[in-house]
């Protein structure tokens, strides 16, 4: 029976190839849009996830904050009444599953930055200083660290110092000069070229450590020296493999709470990265939903096209319906026949749409540097939505066909 239904459907549609194709256009456009948006969205999510996992996921960050976690993501800065001591670090060092711990000095931006004061003659500036990370750098002038700097205080200045502070007429005037930082004399061995945000690709932007973009760089030894006078804002735990980070975190928080019962703030995980990722994902999700709504409208239009053409088909084939009913087709058989025709049109349109949509997303992905990802879910949902569109918009014409009086249908 089902085999015959398919044959009958195929033969009926084959008789009106052009009309069937034109009916499919709306569905093709709708599904192609869905697939383009979904595969690009999925690609973007995957890219974000991979850049997140490139960050240290085996590191748990404990910090002290004056606010309870806010669902709305609205925070008001309040100077903390507490900073971690080296004794605190020793206390949490022995927790099971912790491979290593290190302090986080951090400033408002987080990360490894130290906020220091730099004096050059009578000019006072504030710098963010991070340890040299051996990454490739582009210099405006001067050079990178080398062996000759070992045991000496040397600094590579970030161009941002000159971008935000116009006390220096020419950045290069500082090269090879000595500046005073926290009372120590540092020799400026290089100045980084101005960081260009515009030239960043999306993937480069996501992989970038934004906390140190504006930082000047000193050697690790100098950094440690400078950090001695800095408050410890957080403790980072590097975990052994397979360790549950929540357990470690809970234990560390427990130890801290017990040791510092008189503080006003809270000990909690510093999950700014995760929050940012979540916000980004949510933003992509909202954008996707918005575009989906537009797509739904195009599917609605496509669906109405299907409904229209099914009505035409039912009217044209009244006699055929009457003949089929006369020789024994039950009303539901007629219903299924027309429904299957509508579903077949939209399924075929959907499959063509999936193909076109994926091709379009590959094309668009080339321009915006996102590799589109086609998941089985996207394929199944798109095909399913197509079939559902056919069924939903085909049901009324199919129902009217099934309710026709055989005699009236035969003799029109």
């Amino acid at each position, binding site marked *: *029976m089902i085999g*015959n239904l398919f044959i009958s459907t195929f033969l009926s549609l084959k008789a009106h190839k052009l009309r069937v194709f034109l009916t499919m256009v709306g569905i093709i456009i709708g599904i192609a849009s869905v697939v383009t948006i979904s595969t690009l969205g999925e690609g973007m999510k995957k890219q974000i996830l991979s850049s997140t996992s490139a960050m240290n996921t085996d590191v748990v960050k404990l910090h002290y904050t004056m606010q309870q976690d806010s669902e709305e993501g609205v925070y008001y800065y309040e100077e903390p009444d507490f900073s971690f001591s080296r004794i605190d670090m020793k206390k949490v060092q022995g927790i099971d599953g912790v491979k290593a711990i290190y302090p986080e000095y951090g400033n408002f931006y987080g990360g490894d930055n130290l906020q220091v004061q730099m004096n050059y003659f009578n000019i006072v500036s504030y710098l963010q200083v991070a340890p040299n990370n051996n990454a490739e750098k582009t210099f405006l002038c001067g050079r990178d660290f080398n062996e000759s700097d070992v045991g000496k205080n040397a600094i590579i200045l970030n161009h941002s110092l000159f971008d935000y502070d116009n006390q220096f007429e020419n950045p290069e005037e500082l090269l090879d000069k000595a500046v005073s930082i926290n009372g120590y004399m540092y020799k400026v061995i290089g100045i980084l070229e101005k960081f260009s945000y515009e030239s960043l690709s999306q993937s480069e932007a996501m992989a970038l450590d934004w906390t140190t973009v504006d930082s000047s760089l000193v050697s690790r030894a100098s950094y440690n020296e400078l950090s001695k006078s800095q408050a410890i804002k957080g403790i980072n735990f590097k975990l052994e493999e397979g360790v549950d980070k929540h357990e470690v975190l809970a234990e560390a928080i427990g130890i801290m709470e017990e040791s510092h019962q008189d503080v006003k703030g809270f000990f909690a995980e510093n999950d700014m990265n995760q929050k940012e990722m979540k916000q980004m994902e949510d933003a992509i999700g909202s954008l996707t939903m918005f575009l989906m709504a537009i797509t739904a409208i195009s599917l609605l239009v496509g669906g109405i096209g299907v409904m229209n053409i099914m009505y035409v088909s039912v009217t044209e084939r009244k006699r*055929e319906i*009457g003949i089929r009913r*006369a*020789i*024994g087709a039950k009303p*539901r058989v007629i219903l299924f026949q027309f429904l299957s025709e509508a579903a077949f049109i939209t399924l075929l349109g959907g499959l063509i749409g999936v193909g076109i949509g994926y091709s379009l997303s590959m094309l668009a992905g080339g321009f915006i540097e996102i590799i589109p990802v086609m998941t089985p879910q996207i394929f199944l949902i798109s095909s399913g939505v197509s079939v559902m569109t056919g069924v939903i918009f085909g049901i009324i014409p199919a129902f009217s066909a099934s309710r026709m009086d*055989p*005699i009236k249908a035969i003799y029109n």
Partner: protein
Amino acid sequence: MEEIGEKKEPLVVLKNINKYFPAGKEKLHVLKNLNLTIYQGEFIMVMGKSGSGKTTLMNIIGFLDRISEGSYFFNQQDVSKLTENKKSEFRNEYFGFIFQQFFLINSLNVIQNVKLPCVYEKKKSGREQNELGKKYLAAVGLGDKAKSKVTELSGGQQQRVAIARSLINDPLLIMADEPTGALDSETGTEVMEMLKKLNQHGKTIVMVTHDKDLTRYATRVVYMKDGRFLEEAIQ
């Protein structure tokens, strides 16, 4: 007119049948208190002018239309108030229809048209349906046309395809509505000979016609006027 017909095994028994059609606010009384018994093996011709009610009577017998008043027994079963599904089943299992305009489905080829009642019967496999289709096509002399498009056939050939379709489920009753009306006289005679042969093999046939010449094929002829039977002739 009282009940007519010989006392054999009754296949169709219509008692006090009335049929009304709505005509604006009025009702059109099309069949007026009809009584008819059709026995197995009969070849009945219903004759009458246009508007006499003969086609409505045929549609009622073939479950294509419902009665307004009265009762209908088919094969000793009260079928006056069947559901749409049940009526479809009865038409499929017990009736074969032959129409004046053949009424084949153009998007299907010859054998697909012939086996369509089997498809709706859902009792035979695809292979059995095909074999049966070929058998009946051969019986009407179109064994070589199984895969042809119906639009490629002549009128006479199309009517023979319709006859094969009406026979495929081995019905108890064949309903023929002016089966020669659209054919030339030679082809019409061929079709009538075919129906006669079927009747001789035991098939019960009810046929509606205008053509008085065809009454020689019937075992009984009933005449209708204004929704009533006028007279009968038993041959």
